[in-house]
């Protein structure tokens, strides 16, 4: 069964083409949706791509959350539809309160672009079901505001409910610090309670073929393709 993917383009999105290509690579029917549109055109999966929507002015994601398309994204999410926010997309999901917490300036105060080791923790989402729990991946990050922050209660809830999707893994301590931005609990990605809305800082769409260094990010896209044919992962996730 084919899956229809909508990649939302905001003014300033710059990973839109990358996400579209990755979705097409796994056989999805992928199209762009303009931020001023009000309909997702019947898409099964929505991707909010990385970039600098509205130049990150005011605060990353703070203006994009008011774009007309966001009402449709919210309805889609409320109905259990799959939504993935990557990098700026994650920031927008937090600003729109589709995910808890916030993404703050990196602890090192500088933009950081490098491959980082992460572990996949929650695999009962439409974007991570292709991975084994605990799978260790190396994914690129590229952001200036990726430090996940939440109140103690929210962080505790995310841990208790198993909603940490990706966590920065400890690298070789002598060589690389694992957590590139000072995120609380080394959190690199989270989901909503149901698991259908996922936000991550790393960029799996940039590592989808050996020529690009690895294809370890491909699972984020094959997961939702498989979800179209097999039992929706949402049903198997209750714990």
């Amino acid at each position, binding site marked *: 069964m084919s899956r229809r993917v909508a990649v939302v383009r905001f*003014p300033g999105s710059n990973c839109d083409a990358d996400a579209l*290509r*990755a979705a097409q690579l796994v056989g999805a029917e992928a199209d762009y949706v303009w931020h001023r549109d009000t309909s997702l055109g019947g898409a099964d999966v929505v991707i909010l791509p990385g970039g600098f929507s509205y130049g990150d002015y005011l605060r990353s994601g703070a203006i994009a959350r008011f774009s007309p398309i966001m009402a449709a994204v919210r309805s889609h999410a409320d109905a259990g539809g799959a939504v993935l926010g990557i990098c700026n997309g994650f920031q927008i999901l937090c600003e729109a309160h589709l995910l808890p917490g916030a993404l703050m300036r990196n602890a090192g105060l500088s933009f950081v*672009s*490098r491959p980082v080791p992460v572990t996949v923790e929650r695999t009962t989402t439409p974007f991570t079901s292709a991975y084994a729990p605990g799978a260790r991946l190396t994914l690129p990050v590229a952001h200036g505001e990726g430090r996940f922050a939440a109140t103690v209660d929210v962080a505790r809830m995310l841990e208790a409910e198993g909603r940490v999707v990706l966590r920065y893994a400890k690298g070789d301590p002598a060589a690389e610090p694992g957590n590139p931005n000072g995120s609380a609990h080394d959190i690199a990605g989270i989901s909503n309670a149901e698991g259908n809305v996922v936000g991550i800082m790393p960029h799996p*769409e940039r590592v989808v073929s050996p*020529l690009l260094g690895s294809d370890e990010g491909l699972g984020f896209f094959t997961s939702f393709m498989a979800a179209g044919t097999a039992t929706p992962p949402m049903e198997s996730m209750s714990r």
Partner: protein
Amino acid sequence: MAEVMLGTATAEAVALAGEPAITPELVREHNLTVAEYERILELLGRVPTLTELGVFSALWSEHCSYKHSRPILRTFPTTGPQVVQGPGENAGVLRLPDGWAVAFKVESHNHPSAVEPYQGAATGVGGILRDVFTMGARPVALLNSLRFGPLDVPRNRYLFAGVVRGVGDYGNCVGIPTLGGEVAFAPGYTGNPLVNAMCVGLLRAGDLIRARAEGTGNVLLTVGARTGRDGIHGASFASEELSAASEARRPQVQVGDPFTEKLLLEASLELITSGLIVAIQDMGAAGLTSSSAEMAARGGVGVEIDTGLVPTRESGMTPYEILLSESQERMLVVAEPARVDEISAVCARWELTATPIGRVTDDGIFRVTHHGTVVAAIPGQRLVDDCPVYHPEARESEEVRARRTMAAPAVEIGPEEALARLLGTPNLASKRWVYEQYDSTVQAATVIAPGGDAGVIMVPGTEFGLAVTLDCNARLLALDPYEGGKAAVAEAARNIACTGARPLGITDCLNFGNPEKPEVFFQFREACRGISDACRAFGTPVTGGNVSFYNESPTGAIDPTPTIGMVGVLERAADRVGSHFAEPGDRICILGVTVGRLGGSAYWAELVDFVGGAPAPVDLEAERRLQELLVAAARDGLLRSAHDCSEGGLAVALAEAAMGASYAEHPLGAAADLTGYGDGIAPDALLFGEDGARAVVSLAEGALGALAELAARHGVPLFRAGAVGSAGGALSIVAGGRTLTWDTRHLRRTWLDAIPRRMRHADLDRTTGA
């Protein structure tokens, strides 16, 4: 569309009320010489208006007119079967496989960055991006070449930190991967840092658009940001030496808005590929003046502009200010009147406005009106072409001549300590601190990221790959500009070839001091001669670039620094070769001959502070053979790594390959035995000499025979030097009968930490060092 209202055509322009009279002082303030002013009087047949004086000042500045460099630039080889567009446009264009073409260009933003590092560097990136996307090409890679004074000076740290942040913030926001470049530190750049930015874009050859105004009655439109008072006379500022007074130029540095740039990029490409427009040009240096005058001159037409129609950021701006503003993120578009509504619709979708401000005329006059008054009327072709051209005296400095024959002081430390010390200097250290601040993987096409010999990207939907690099070793040029110019091209070509790509062509950013000084003009002339000779030998034409003179401050002139931006093509991106040893047990070979010349070496400069001796002469034929061998070996899948051997010599090249890629978990180490290679050469010259035409490669043992045969066929000497070690293994080199060993983990730590440890408190340097 809005009706364009213009004053009645007249050859005469009149001064606006309240304008100052044209006095010799005013002429001097506009950086025009007496002879240049006399030429203006003759050309106009009358005294210019203030607006006209400003226009001449900008277009006849060194930055826009190339008045000291033009005769020399004409000697560059600029043709070849791969050339689609040579010099004279916003960017050069070369043919690629499958109907694709590559547009690329490098440009300097030195002076703005010297007084305002963050915005100076950011707008440098913005400008070079616009030069490439106005050709109809989508930017796919950025590179930069940066030079600063030594990092023990607080202000140099402040400039370095600010420039890197400015470069990064702009390119990251627009979403263009930064794939490579170089950073170097030397005393000559204190007070006059260099910021050269290069952009590479891809286009379908059929989408190429040139910046040529055509069609009488066609409309001129500004697209993008409003015009403000920032950057007025930036082109003139770039054409004078820096001084203590330069700090007062800070308000002339433009402010960048990468978000608007991203919108402008998308809107411009949509306008070009949809065929809605006739021509488009960035309003870069000298803003509206140069973009309109140059487009008109290329098309052999006149233009009329009403500055009163230009959207401004503040009220009360004079035509003088509007014409000379260098506000960023603005484009000038030429289109048929019937297309204006469609153009406005495309721009509106990208939240930009397109505003008609003038039209193309058939009288050849560059005419400017302001609310009905003609404030400038200049014969357009002569405005662009009649700037005086100078042929300055060239004479080599006696001091430089003497330095080539000077004996070096003895290096008192042994080679083991020497290598460790070299890898800990900012010049030879890992530049990871820099490129981690640049997004290098956006666009999901990066095959070789920064940290290797050259950056490589794939082109989605095709098999081929594109390799890009930006190089210059200014120390060699300081000692011998001719050989140094050759060496800069040779190094760029070696870097491209090490990845397996075939060098295609270059763009150059020629950074020099004051050309009116004979010893500086000698450097310029000889460096260009060297670049020309190398480009002819390699079949890599010059497709354009930029000249930046007057890179002098009270602390003196910079070293001559012509940075060479080169692109190359890999027939199959999958054949790309990395720089670092990849598999334990692989064999290591050295390609090329070592004579052991230490003239101009990092070994002497970094360890005994001696910049002297004669640099190794560049054997262009040997370089070309090595390039062809590397390309053939990659195509045949023989190589597991290939690394250029240049600054720091064989020891540094072996160490870099052994320490591993930037994010390798463990260095692999290596055991090399140079016995039988370069016998009779003193060990330090063998290890640290900087002869050209060499590379260190590694390969599976089974491929050794095939590589040896291929090397023999190409006439490249091959020496079997040893084997790659295991994870965490040591680096050992047998030289002069002694076995030298290093702990690669220790070397790697020194190499990685050399810049971060100096930059730990850079945020405090503004106040202590400014």
